[in-house]
């Protein structure tokens, strides 16, 4: 699974992207976030305030119950501030 991080999520996690082998029990976005938090304090800090974490799967905005699977591109970022 390809993970992308933007803005302060990128800074807190300390990388812009990575490829991860996600365990079989991780089937939804919410479970993915829980599992990422367990990877280290940088992830835990970045994902602590869940309300501020937006998720896109394959470049579409999704909710916490959206399915994720190997091969997906999953992006985590704060609320957008363009324009």
């Amino acid at each position, binding site marked *: 699974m390809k993970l992308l991080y*933007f*803005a302060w999520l990128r800074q807190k996690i300390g990388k812009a992207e990575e490829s991860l082998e996600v365990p079989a029990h991780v089937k939804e976005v919410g479970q993915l976030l829980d599992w990422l938090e367990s990877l280290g304090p940088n992830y835990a800090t970045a994902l602590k305030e869940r309300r501020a974490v937006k998720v*896109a799967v394959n470049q579409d905005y999704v909710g916490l119950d959206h399915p994720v699977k190997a091969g997906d591109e999953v*992006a985590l*970022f*704060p609320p*957008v*501030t*363009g324009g």
Partner: protein
Amino acid sequence: MIRVQRGDFDIGAELERLAAGSHQVGGIASFIGLVRDIAPAESGGGSGAASAMTLEHYPGMTEKRLQEIEAEANRRWQLEASLIIHRYGRLEPGDRIVLVATASRHREAALEACAFLIDWLKTEAPFWKLEESAEGARWVEARASDDARKAAWKK
């Protein structure tokens, strides 16, 4: 048409092109977003130092979302042409960030669709602003009022 680019754009040429070749266009509405020097206003005077910013975006998804927003505007209003240009990278006060423009037979459609495009873009397009000031860099926070404006367009 949508474009995501680092470089600046020529407003006159872009708006000219929007109506070119069709004499069915009665009105062109546009909105240009600029980098505002927030330092003096919000710190109550202060140094007046210019505050630059860096716009980060999500290549691929940005283009996809802008195309969807543009398509939605064209579903809601009868437009002859529409345009969204959004820049990324480092920008200084006074620099242009974004141009949205709509051409229609009638001004109502052009004006409404233009406001729609910028309102939706603000809350939908994956861009993030990192502002620099004398105190350091900080990520701009999303405004609840932007969400409210977007919600007001919901059908």
